[in-house]
Each structure stands twice: as structure tokens, then as C-alpha cells.
């Protein structure tokens, strides 16, 4: 995704001299060519995220369209007040880019896991929140953010995510993409969980269960029409995100469903427990531990289709999967 991002940004910078990339001394091997090619549109602010974000707001106030770039929590939580006051309050054209969304940097440990960012940033007024589902979406999201639409949070994975969309799709900011059609269960994913959602749908299709997959790349503004339409048709909604179950995609979809007039909808969030991880390992390993792997998601969606309104701890065969099931935990 970061490769798709920097490719898109390079094209944009060539077209529009206002495009400026400000990095917090991160992006080894990613930003070097951009820096060489566009020295007046590039800046390394040093390991100083508060100043990086404040000066990005200042650059934007002078007419630039600024992308700040760093890893995981550094361009967001470290300088959250600069994001809120300097960028959002001034409606500045600043795109805060975090690479390493979710558990992308798994083995690097807790400091490098971005697992509360969506919840926190979507609560900021004027902030658009985007977590593209694959490199194709990352490129489209970068272009949309570069149009000068005010503050944007762009949550990327890292490098090497697979292309989920194998043909061009009509990506539009704020509009969910229907990636698989199905009438039994709707699986709404955000960010790089999209591939897991698609694999789940394909596996369950073989069992005769029709899973609709929505790539909810834009979490704010949320495509409420798509959610309500899916709820009406399938009556079963599962959200999937590499993020805390608190306040992210699942929370946002729950807000829409609870206030909608659609009744008798089964709803399940799949995400990370609100805990600091005790496990060390790569993204795939940590996803498995937390029930975010394809097999676990298949089991969850199948169980919802089979009729259980809630998944109880004793019903579940995964040792830690239930910890990611908020309904079971809080019931």
C-alpha cells in the first residue's frame, strides 16, 4: 500500500506544485525518489511529530496541500492536539498518512501497533477517515485526498499487501465498494482486512452461504445508505477490522444500525480486544491469535448464518477467539 501511495503521490506532485510531502524522518526506501525529484515539495521535519504537524498546517495555510507521513501512532497520537487544533480546527488541507495500520508492524511490538487510531481520529470534527482495502484503493484514496478537501486521515498498511481488486473498480470517497454479492450475510471490512473478507466469502459460497462483502474504505463520512441497504437485504451484519473493537468500524456501523429503522438485524463486530497484546509475532500470526484470520472469520460468519444470535464463549472452539468477540465478553 505504501508503494501505491508514493506512486500516486509522485504522479500528483508532478501535476500539482502545491502537493508537499512532510515526513517525520521515516520512509526509508519509500520517499527517497520523491525527495530527489521534488526537493521543493518535500521536507523531512526530523523526529518531531508535533512540529511536523504544526508546520504542515502552516504550509497548508499558505496554500499547500500537505501530506504528513510516519509510522503507526507517530503522526496521529503523538501529535493529536496539533492534528485537532492546528489541522482540523483550521480546516487545513493536511493529509495525515500513517503506514502500519493495525498490526502491520506486528513483531515490532505494542508501540508500533496502530489499533485505536480510527476511533480517535474519526471523533475529530472536519476529519475524513480513510483506510483503503488494497493497493488499488490506496492509490485512489491518495488521489481523492490530494484534491484539497480539508483534513484527511489516510490509514495504510505497509508494503506487499495483495491486490484484491483484479480489475478497475469505481472507487469513490465515502462510498462503500461491493466486492462480493450475497444475500445471506454482509461482511463489512475496512483497511487491509479486505482480502480476509473476500476469502471468507469465497469459501462460504462453496458451502452455499452467500456473503456480501463491502469494502468500507471510508469510515468517515460513513456510507450509511450502503449499511442500511445491506441490513435490509441480508439481516446479518458482521464488521471486520484490524483495530480495537471499541469505536472503529464496528462501533461506527453499530451507531448506524441502532439508530436505523431496520429491525431484527443480527450484528457482530470482529476486531481486536481492548487490551495490549501479550503475543509477539508477525501480522499473520497476531491475526490468527486474535481471530482475524480467514478460518476464524469463516467460523464466525457461518455461525451467524446458522442462527446463533450471539456467540458464547463455551461454543467457540478457538482458545483466544472469544476475546475478540465483544458481545460475548460484555453480555
Amino acid at each position: 500500500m505504501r508503494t501505491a501511495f508514493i506512486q500516486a503521490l509522485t504522479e500528483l506532485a508532478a501535476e500539482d506544485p502545491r502537493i508537499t510531502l512532510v515526513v517525520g524522518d521515516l520512509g526509508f526506501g519509500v520517499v527517497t525518489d520523491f525527495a530527489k525529484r521534488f526537493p521543493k515539495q518535500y521536507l523531512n521535519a526530523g523526529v518531531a511529530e508535533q512540529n511536523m504537524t504544526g508546520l504542515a498546517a502552516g504550509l497548508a495555510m499558505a496554500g499547500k496541500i500537505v501530506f504528513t507521513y510516519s509510522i503507526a501512532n507517530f503522526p496521529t497520537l503523538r501529535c493529536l492536539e496539533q492534528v485537532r487544533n492546528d489541522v482540523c480546527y483550521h480546516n487545513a488541507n493536511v493529509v495525515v498518512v500513517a503506514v502500519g495500520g493495525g498490526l502491520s508492524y506486528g513483531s515490532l511490538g505494542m508501540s508500533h501497533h496502530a489499533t485505536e487510531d480510527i476511533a480517535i481520529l474519526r471523533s475529530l470534527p472536519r476529519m475524513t477517515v480513510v483506510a483503503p482495502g488494497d493497493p488499488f484503493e490506496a492509490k485512489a484514496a491518495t488521489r481523492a485526498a490530494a484534491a484539497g478537501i480539508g483534513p484527511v486521515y489516510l490509514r495504510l498498511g505497509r508494503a506487499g499487501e495483495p491486490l484484491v481488486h483484479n480489475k478497475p473498480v469505481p472507487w469513490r470517497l465515502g462510498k462503500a465498494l461491493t466486492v462480493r454479492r450475497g444475500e445471506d450475510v454482509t461482511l463489512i471490512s475496512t483497511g487491509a482486512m479486505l482480502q480476509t473478507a473476500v476469502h471468507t466469502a469465497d469459501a462460504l459460497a462453496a458451502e452455499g452461504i452467500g456473503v456480501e462483502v463491502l469494502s468500507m474504505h471510508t469510515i468517515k463520512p460513513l456510507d450509511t445508505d450502503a449499511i442500511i441497504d445491506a441490513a435490509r437485504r441480508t439481516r446479518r451484519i458482521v464488521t471486520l477490522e484490524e483495530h480495537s473493537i471499541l469505536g472503529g468500524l464496528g462501533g461506527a456501523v453499530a451507531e448506524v444500525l441502532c439508530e436505523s429503522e431496520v429491525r431484527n438485524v443480527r450484528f457482530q463486530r470482529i476486531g481486536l480486544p481492548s487490551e495490549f497484546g501479550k503475543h509477539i509475532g508477525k501480522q499473520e500470526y497476531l491475526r490468527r491469535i486474535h481471530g482475524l484470520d480467514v478460518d476464524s472469520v469463516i467460523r464466525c460468519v457461518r455461525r451467524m448464518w446458522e442462527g446463533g444470535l450471539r456467540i458464547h464463549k463455551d461454543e467457540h472452539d478457538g482458545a483466544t477467539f472469544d476475546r475478540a468477540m465483544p458481545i460475548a465478553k460484555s453480555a
Partner: protein
Amino acid sequence: MPSSTMPPSIQTNAACRELARRIRIHAVRMTHLAGSSHVGSSLSLAELLAVLYRSILRITPETIDDPDRDRLILSKGHACAGLYAALAECGFFPVEWLDDFYHDGARLPGHATAEGIPGIEVSSGSLGHGLGIACGLALAGKRDGRPFRVFTVLSDGECDEGSIWEAVLFAPHHRLDNLVAIVDYNKIQSLDRVEDVLGLEPLADKWRAFGWATREVDGHDVGQIEETLRGLPFEPGKPSCLIAHTVKGKGVSFMENTVLWHYRSPQGEEYQRALEELEATV
């Protein structure tokens, strides 16, 4: 003698002193009517704002959207009563707006806010933000070959913030000689004297060591302030820092140099005495 026959500098100095006096009267009255804090912080920077708006900043009410205007960011946003007063006196918005400062439904909130208030460049209030934004503006000006300058007024207590020192490190590296940081060094922060909370000394040496061309002035001497700021940039290729030695609560005898008047609002007899002292100032 009639003002038209005086040398220009004397005229300007007199005008600045009068504007500073007007700023103080407004600030005392505003914080009185509002029952609000921070009068001491507004009184200490009255001359700085007066000189900036009267004779240094290239901005007028007609040029607030001009891309080449000078920018002033009041990073110490709690001293907004002083800034609002300066802007109103200079015609950026009606003086009547000052009357309901801080009240329900008013235009002017208790920290400097840009939305809907002509002449305010940047909203502030949380300390440690102004200099970073100023760096971005100044860098954009440099890269685009624009002639504008960026001024930001900091408090001394604000220099406790780490984000200030991130920006202090940044500006000289990028040779931002279109950037001016002014420290209203009134020696008192929220709860106590600066030297007792978190000492800043040697403050000027710190800025110099980071690469800023630094000058120190008596922040209540309009002639000295103006003469110094006329020499901007203090050194080519370096950002400029003006450390203005000031007195918190300046102009009202019983407010001067006291911690109390960071938060206390002038009421009753204290309000009357404060106004009388300021009205009597020539």
C-alpha cells in the same frame, strides 16, 4: 508643538504609547465585564502589540486576505483580550465587539480564535502551537518566493512546551529569516514565578545556541521595540528572536509583577482603581 511638525519617530512612538494605553484599558474592562482571567498577560504585551500593528506589520483591514501580508500568530492565546483590543483599535472589526467578550453568544472567545474574527490568523489557546505553524508559513513563503514575514508572540511559560523547542530547532536549519519569535518574558507563569516553576535562564543564550539571531529589549519601551524590529531580519539567513523583558500586569500598580493577576478578574474597587491609573497615564 503640533504633531505634524514632530519628527516621524516621535509621532510613531507617541501613537504606539497611546495604542498600548488603549489596549490596556480595553483589556481591563473586557476581563472585568467577562469576569475572566489573564488580564496580567494582556497588560504585559500591550507595547509589543501596539508597535507591531502600528508600525511593523504589513497588514491592514483591507489586506487581511492578501497572500503577501505579514502574519502575526498570538501563540499565547490566553492574552487574546490584548490582541482583540489591538485589532479593534486598528479597525479590523468594530470596537463594540469587545463589550461582550467571553459572554454567551459573543463573537470573541477567551482564547484567540480565527473563525469569524477578521485579523486573527491562527486560533490558539493550547500552548506550544504557534511557532510550529509559523515555521510552516515561513517555509512556504521562502519556497514560493513570497515577501511576507511571520511573527509569533510566545509566553515565557509556553517555553516549557517541548513542541516549542522542536520548532526552535527547525527554523534555523531551514534558514527562515522571514520568521520572528517574540517572547513576552514577564517572568510569571500560571502558578508561580518562572524561575521557581521551571527556570528558562539563560533564555537568550538558549535561542542563540539553537541558531537564532537574538535581541533583548525592554518590552515596554516602544522606541526600543520599534528600532529593534525595524532591523529585521536581525541577521540574514537566520530566524529572529526578540526577547522582550516585560512586567506582568504592567500599567496597573497593584497588578504589576504578581502571580495573583494571572487569574484574578478586576472587580469592584480594584476595577475602578485600575481604570483610573490607566486613564491617568499619558
